[in-house]
Every structure is written in C-alpha cells, then in structure tokens.
C-alpha cells in the first residue's frame, strides 16, 4: 500500500495548499515552510519504498523502480523549485515585480509534478496523454505567473501557442498509433508492434509523437521556444521548466520507446541518434554567444536534452538506469546553477555581467558556480561527468560509436560556453559594486547542492544504489 501512498500525497498537495490559503489563511512564511516540509516528507517516504517489484493499481497504474526514481526526481525538483521561489515571493528580484499567490504557485508546481507521476505510471495511451497535459498546462500558467511583467506574459503566449501545436502533433500521432494497433493499452500495442507487418501508419504516428514530445524536450528543431520562455519566465519557473518538464518528456519517451515500441527500437534508433546529435549541436552552438544567464541556460538545457536522448539508444535496464542517474545529477547541477543565479541576480538583471567580480565578493558562491557549471559541462570528478559517462556507456553497448564521438566532441563546445560564464565570475572585474547577500537558508541549500554535485558522481553511493534496483 505504501507504494501508492506518495502519489496520493502529491495529488492532495495542491488542494491542501489551496485550502491553507483559503480556509486557514496562514501566512506566506508558514505556507512556504509547509510546502517544503510536505515535499520533504514525500521524498523521504519515497525512499522507503521497496524497489525491484512492479505494482499495478486500478489495472493500469504501474509503479516500478524506474517510476519510483522518477517520482523522486519530480518531487526533488518541486522541492527545490519551491525553495528557490522563496526570494521571488518576498521581494522583487532581478528588477522585476515580486510574485504573488504562493499557494496557487506551489499548487501548480504540485500538479506539474503529479503530471510527471502520471506519465511514468501510465500503462495506456490515454493516461500517458493526460499525464503529459497535466504536466504541461500548469507550466503555461507558471510561466505567466508574473502578470505585472510583460516579458513573462509574452513568453507565456509563445509557450502556449507553440505548445498547443505540439499537443496537436502528439494527439495526431496517438490517433494513428491507436489506429495502427487498435488498442490504447500498452500490452496490446506491444503485441501489435511486435507482430504487425511494417506499416507506414506506425512510422507516421511515431514521427508525430516524437515531434510533439520533441517540443517538450526541446529537441531540434522544436526547441526554438525555449530561449524566449526561459528568459521571460520567473527564475524558479525556468528551473522547473528545465528540470521537471524535461524529465517528464524523457519519461514519456522512455515509457513509449522502451515499452510498447520496444521491438522497433532498432529501427527508430537512427532517428533518435540524429535527433540527439542535431539537438546537442544546435544547443551548444546557440549557447556560444549569449549574454543573458537564463537564455544561456536554455541553450545549455537544450544540449543536455540531446545527451539524455542518447540513453534511449541503449538496452532496457541500462537505458532506464542511465536516464534516472543522469536526471538526478542534472537536477542537482542545474538547480545549483539557478540558485546561484538567483542570488546574484537579486538586485540586477540576470546577465553575465551580473556575475562579474563574484570570486572577489563571495568565494563560496564562485566555487559553487564553478562546480555547477563544470558539472554541466561534464568535467570529472563532478557529477555531470558520471551521468554522461553512464549514458555513453549505455549507447556504446549498442554500437553507436560515431554518435558518441560526436557528442563528446560537442562537450568541447559546451566547455567553451561554460568557461565564458566562469570568466565573468572569476576573471572579469566588476563594473559597479552591487552588494551580495545570501539568506542562510539558501546558503545551506547551495552548500548541500554543491556537496552533492561534488561527491555524488565520484562516490559510488548513488550510482550503486540505483544500479541495484535496475540491474
């Protein structure tokens, strides 16, 4: 029973938050503490679930090891996003008006997390679709959260319009998949795919589905929205977009590709490989000459999406394991970067020049930034490297050497632009002095994240625990 318990808790969370505000009228501070505490509890509960077994509820609510780990990632991401948003609700940050309605905000975050959970638990197309939408629609709202900021609204407009087009692709693809197999439940689709003659219907549906999800996962060329939206949205939302939203998308693909479509994985591998290669290349190219931090992070996360996609070329247990492992480390590194950006951008726009002189003002932040970015760039012994190594190993087992060579060479480009950021923080002298203060809570979180990024890769604790569950 405990296995479904966290799901229920997450589902309840938005309602609890809303009632806290509506009926109990508690203060913002209590709301924040409660939300963080709530997610912490869920996270801890998730850790108690025994791994290695598959549970089914209501016949198609599947909970397996992969699902539990993905839940942990969603919860972790929400937890960090809510902690990150603390500043934004209490004061104006980055020269933008402060955010309002924390309870609704965290409720939306909760919904999005639940959407992810639905996706990972789905055992039929309908659940999958609902999950995806549940994860997406709150994002639209979240992007537009700062009503008084015109950039945010504009970003949200772009997001929702392009997103709806993607949804249409998705739905169209699903309809063909349904038409091809005659079922929407996975076991039947699996059968149909495995036994059927090769049919254009299947491939066209796959093309549409992958294009549709390519939007969420920012795959080339469906990624164009990302920079604008990442830039326009409030920073915590950007963080959620880059972590939760990507995690949901890759989960979606994993559930499909390693699930019902398992038997045609060989045939779609070249497509996925091309997608991955193009995505990480374009992401890296785009990031080369940016000057705004969040826009930069958008391109960085586009290329990260390319890397994650490579994992799908591997065999089932390894691929799932690599995705989970990578996402964990990516979550830490990415949030660490966003936390630092939010501290730096407290009183100024979040641009590269805001970072100038960081190493003199605050060594701790500067070192954390170094660790975060080098981890994202995949430099050992930081966490990001081990995630990438895992992914490449997975793909190498199926012989995708040239993609791997291409991907690792792309790392050089990535290194270049991360170094650009580091240059601002470590080398350049500040133009004007703007004081920097870190609230203790944030300091602790940054410290924890820094340590995790520093150690979780090199120390085998995380990877071995994960691998026991999968392999």
């Amino acid at each position, binding site marked *: 029973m405990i296995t479904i318990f966290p799901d229920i808790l997450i589902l309840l969370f938005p309602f609890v938050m809303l009632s806290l505000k509506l009926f109990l009228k508690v203060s913002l501070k209590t709301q924040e503490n409660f939300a963080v505490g709530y997610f912490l509890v869920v996270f801890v509960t998730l850790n108690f679930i025994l791994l290695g077994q598959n549970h089914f509820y209501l016949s198609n609510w599947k909970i397996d090891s992969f699902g539990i780990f993905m839940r942990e990632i969603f919860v972790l991401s929400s937890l960090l996003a809510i902690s990150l948003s603390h500043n934004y609700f209490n004061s104006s940050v980055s020269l933008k008006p402060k955010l309002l309605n924390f309870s609704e905000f965290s409720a939306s975050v909760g919904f999005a997390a639940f959407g992810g959970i639905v996706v990972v638990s789905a055992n039929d197309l309908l659940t999958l679709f609902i999950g995806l939408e549940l994860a997406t629609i709150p994002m639209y709202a979240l992007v537009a959260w700062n009503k008084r900021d015109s950039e945010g609204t504009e970003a949200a407009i772009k997001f929702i319009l392009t997103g709806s*087009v993607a949804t249409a*692709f998705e739905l169209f693809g699903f309809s063909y998949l349904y038409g091809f197999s005659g079922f929407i439940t996975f076991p039947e689709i699996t059968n149909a795919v495995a036994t059927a003659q*090769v049919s254009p219907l299947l491939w066209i549906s796959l*093309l549409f589905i992958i294009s549709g999800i390519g939007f969420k996962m920012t795959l080339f060329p469906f990624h*164009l929205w990302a920079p604008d939206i990442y830039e326009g949205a409030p920073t915590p939302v950007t963080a959620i977009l880059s972590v939760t939203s990507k995690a949901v998308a890759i989960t979606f693909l994993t559930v499909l590709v390693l699930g019902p479509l398992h038997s045609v994985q060989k*045939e779609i591998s070249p497509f996925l490989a*091309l*997608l991955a290669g193009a995505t990480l290349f374009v992401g890296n190219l*785009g990031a080369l*000459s940016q000057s705004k931090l969040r826009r930069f992070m958008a391109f960085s996360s586009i290329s990260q999406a390319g890397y994650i996609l490579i994992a799908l070329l591997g065999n089932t247990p390894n691929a799932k394991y690599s995705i989970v492992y990578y996402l964990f480390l990516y979550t830490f590194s990415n949030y660490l970067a966003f936390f630092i950006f939010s501290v730096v951008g407290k009183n100024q726009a979040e641009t590269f020049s805001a970072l100038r002189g960081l190493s003199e003002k605050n060594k701790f932040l500067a070192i954390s930034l170094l660790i975060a970015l080098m981890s994202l760039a995949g430099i050992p012994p930081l966490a990001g490297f081990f995630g990438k190594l895992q992914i490449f190993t997975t793909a190498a087992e199926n012989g995708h050497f040239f993609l791997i060579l291409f991907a690792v060479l792309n790392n050089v480009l990535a290194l270049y632009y991360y170094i650009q950021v580091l240059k601002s923080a470590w080398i350049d002298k500040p133009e004007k002095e703007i004081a920097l203060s870190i609230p203790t809570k944030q300091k602790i979180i940054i410290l924890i994240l820094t340590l995790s990024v520093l150690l979780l890769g090199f120390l085998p604790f995380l990877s071995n625990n994960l691998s026991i569950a999968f392999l």
Partner: protein
Amino acid sequence: MNNLISHSYLILLLPLLSFIINGLFLCFRHRKMAAILSTSLSFLGAVFATIISVNFFISGAKPILAFNYEFLPFTGTLVATIGCLLDSLSAMMILTVSLISFAVHIYSIGYMESDQASGRFFALLSLFVFSMLGLVIAPNIFQTFIFWELVGVSSYLLIGFWYDRPSAVSASKQAFILTRFADSFFLLGIILLSYITKSFVFSDINALRLENFAGQMISLGIIEIPTSDALIFSTLLIFIGGWGKSAMFPLHIWLPNAMEGPTPVSSIIHSATMVVAGVYLVARLFPLFAISGNVLEIVMIVGAFTMVFAAVIACTQKDIKRILAYSTLSQLGYMMLALGSARVADSSIHILGYSAATFHIFTHAFFKCMLFLIAGALIHQVHSNDLNAMGGLRKKMPWTYAASLIACLAIAGIPPFSGFYSKDEILISAYQAGHPIIFACALFTSFLTAFYMFRLFFLAFHGKMRSIPKHPVHESLLMTLPILLLTIPTLFSGFLFKGIFHNFSPEVPLSLAKNLPSATFIPPLAITFSVLGILLSFLFYASKKSNPAKALDSDNRNAFYKIIYHKFYFDEIYYAFVRQFILGGLASFARFFEEKIFGTLVTFATTLIQKMGVLVRKAHAGSLPFYIAIMIIGLLFWYFASNLPLQGA
C-alpha cells in the same frame, strides 16, 4: 705499473674535481684560491700523465683497457661505456694535453690576474681539459662523442668568456653552432655505424672488413644501398664531425673568430684540445678510414686545400691572433693531409702518413701553444691584437723574443726544432704515397708558413715601436715561465721522439705499400723553401728598405690582396647564409606555415563555429510565427531525414 693503471681514473678525476670545486664553491668569491687549486690539480695531472705515459711506452706500448664503467646499455652488444683505453695514441695525447694544460694554467694565473671572473675561468678551463682527456682515452666511439660534445660546449663557454662583449658572444655561438652542425652528422654516422656493426668499441670497429657485408642491403629511407657502401658512408659522416671540429674548409670560419676568447683559451684550443680532436678521431679510426674506399682521399684533399687556403690568408692578416689561427688551420691541414695520404693509389697503405700526422699533432701542440702564449704576452703589453700597435718589442721583452724566435723556427720547419721533423715526414709521406700535386702544395705551404710566421715575428719585435703602450709592463714571471718551459719540448721533442712515433702503427687490414721511391732529396728541399720564406719576409718587413707601416696598410691594395685580406669573404657568406637561408628562409617559412597557413585554418575553424553560433542565436529572435513555422518544417524535415521506413513496405 698495474697499480698505476688501476688509478688511471685520476686522469679524468683531477680536472673534474677542479671543475666541480671551482665551479660550485670558489667561482665567485675566492678567485685566488680557484687559480691555485686548479693549477695545482693540473700539475698533479701533468705529473700523473707523464708517469703513466712514460711507463706505458717503457713497458712495451701494449694497448690496455684501464677501466670500463657501464654507462647505458642499449640492445645486446651495443653498450655505451665510459672507460679508459691506453694505447700509443692516447698515451701520447694524454701527455700532450696534460702538459699543455699545466703550462696554460700557470700562464693564466698571470694573464687573468686582473679579471674579476677568473674563478669561473679556471673552472671552465678544467672542464675543457677534462673533456679533452675523456675524449682521448675513450675506448669506444660513443664515449668519444660524449666528450666531443663536452669539448664543444666548454669551448663555447670559454670563447664567450667575456660575455658582455658582443663579438665574443657571437664568436662563441658561431663556434658552437658550426661544430654542432658537423656533430649532427657525426652522431648520424655513429648511429649508422653502430647499427651495422652492433658495437661502439673501437677495437670492433677497426676490425671491420667490407667483405663481411657482401650482399647485404640497408635502407637509408629514400634509397637502399649495400651495407658496405653504408659503412663507407658512415665513415664519411664521422669524418664530417672531425671536419667541423678541426675547422677544415669550409667549416673553418669559427676558428679565427674564436680568437675573441682570452688568449690562454685560444692557446689551449689550438694546441692540444678542440681542434686536434678531429685529426685525432681520424687517427683513432684509421683502420676504418683505410678500408672505406675514397674517404681517405677526401680527407687528404680537404686537408690540403685548407692548408694552402689558410696559409694564403695568414700572409695578409694584421691581427696576430688571427695569423696564428690561420696558421693552426694550415697546420691542421697538414695533419689531415698526412692521414689522407697514407692510402696509396693501389689501395695499399703507407703507414708513414699516420705516424707523421700523430707526430705533427705532438710537436705542433707545443710550439703552437707557445706561440699563443707569446701572442698573449704581446697583447698584454700593448693592449691590442693589431700588428700596427706593435714593433720593436724585442728590447722590452727579451725572453719572449728569444722564445718566439725558437717557436717561429719550429713552425717554419728549420732543423733541429721539432716542427722540422714532423713536417718533413708529412712531406715524405705525401711524396712516397704518390701524390705529387699534394706534395707540391705542402712544399709551397711550408714556404708560406715560414713567410707569414716571420712576417709576424719581424713586425712585432723588430723595427720601431709603432705605439707607446699606455701601461708598460715588464715580462711577468708567471707568464714568461710557461713560455720558456715550452721551449724545451719545442727544441727537443722532434729528434727525441721521432723513433717512438715510427712505432705507431694501427692494425690495418690492407697490405703495406712496397717499393716506395726514395725521398732523400726532400729534407734539404723543404729547408730551402722555409729559408726562402724567412728571407723574403726579412726583405719585406725587417730590412732597411722595408716600410712596415705600408706593409700593414690594407686599404690601398689591389683587389686580389683585398679578397685575401677579407678571408675570401667567408664570414660574410656565412652570415648571409645563416640570416638569409636559415633564419630568413627556412625559419621564416616554418613560421609562416605555422602562423599564416596552419593558424589560419585553426582560426577559420573556430570562426566557422562562432558564425554558426551567431546564426543559431539569430534564429531565436522571438518571432512566434517563425517558431511555429519551423516546428512544422521540422516535422517535414524529419519526415525526409529521419531514416524511418515511412514510405512503407
């Protein structure tokens, strides 16, 4: 005897000790101490060397390998060792080097008295002697090369001893680079030779027979040649090493320029160390050279040419050290010529050439050292190298005058001085081995030698004083003593040791030449030529009618004289070659390739990526319809590009 031999490491250890102690501890502060220490160690060395070599010759002159310490094993039998081989040749060289070194050390105490850096000087001098001794006792060619290089570097340091003088610096650089250039061929020769023979040891190398390699081929990269040819080729390469070190034409230019160093250095370079190394190398490998086809002929021709060439230049120079330098070149030419002429046309060997060359190394060392020391004394007196500033010094420096007369007579080849005996043998060897043209050249050069040496002698000591020394000094004891000491070997080494050198005969795998023509007419002929040279010189420079000032005027001369005076413009050619061809040509092209061609490629690649980055950045300009259009185009794009079997089966 055995006891002595077992201590033969002292030959190397004494100068090395002097170098280390001086270099590390005494160099900067205690220059007096340094001078005393290194002179006394060099005295010990000279005594020890004398004992050892006298013992060696008395006990029958059997080659002994005194010690052999394994330095670096390569493959199989190819092992580099540091050892001491005592045979006639090396014993003679040890003696010569040690004695000369001792004389120069004493002289330097006086000469370097006022120099603040004399501590360093003595350290380097010891290093120089150490390197040369290591070279002469080497039992294998690898050790020869090691010490060969050390000789090169210590000469570099000594020539450039006054490193704040640009001319000294550039002379030292030139000396090092030119010899290094030759050494690179030497190294190649060693490697090729060791590849063929699988050994560095002289006894193995000298026992080679070309017939053993019949039918074998070896690749030199572009071409494949028979191994026996490769052997000959490697001999030639090794000779190029000696070519550079002994400053044979056209690699000779460093030697006259090396006069920028302190005079004791020039003295030791020209007499016993450095330059004779090349001759020594050929002598050491004589059996290999003898079997290597025409290499000995090349040696002979190079030697003969340098001999005449240098002598001609020497006749016109005004700088006394340069005159001596060209005379050294000329004498080295004699030695090379002698070695080369040992091969008779019907490929038998006339061993007299070999013994004459070694004999000449021996005798030449003493009188040339002496001449340089005298030159140093003169320079000390007038503070100039220029003959213009000298003249009439015989009254001021009577001892020096007497000594230099002896030295000049020796080099001119007048009996009973030592030079006569060795030069005479060289002439005989060239004549008997059937090289009449070479013989004629040598005879002519002996005339020139007498002429230019006495030109120097007369212009320096006779006539009127052409300048008044600013700080007139008396002949100091420390500087005159070694000069006078050296007159002893200059006087006696000729007829005393002639017999010993006749026993010098390496084991050559060729038949000895027979039916040699009689050469009794040569000694009187040679003396005649020398006397003619002296007389002519007297006529030009010391007789009543002569005008030394006009004789020294180099400006109002005909073109022929000027060409010779400017040393056939070889310095200019060298500098032009280095600047225009090496630096301006090769190096500039290399840099051009690196920076302009290759660098542009790298820049192009990075710019390309940057440009692509800008393109991607520009694509995300914020236009919503564009984004949607791209999404739809993307769908179509993947339709065609995705490799999915969309067209169906």
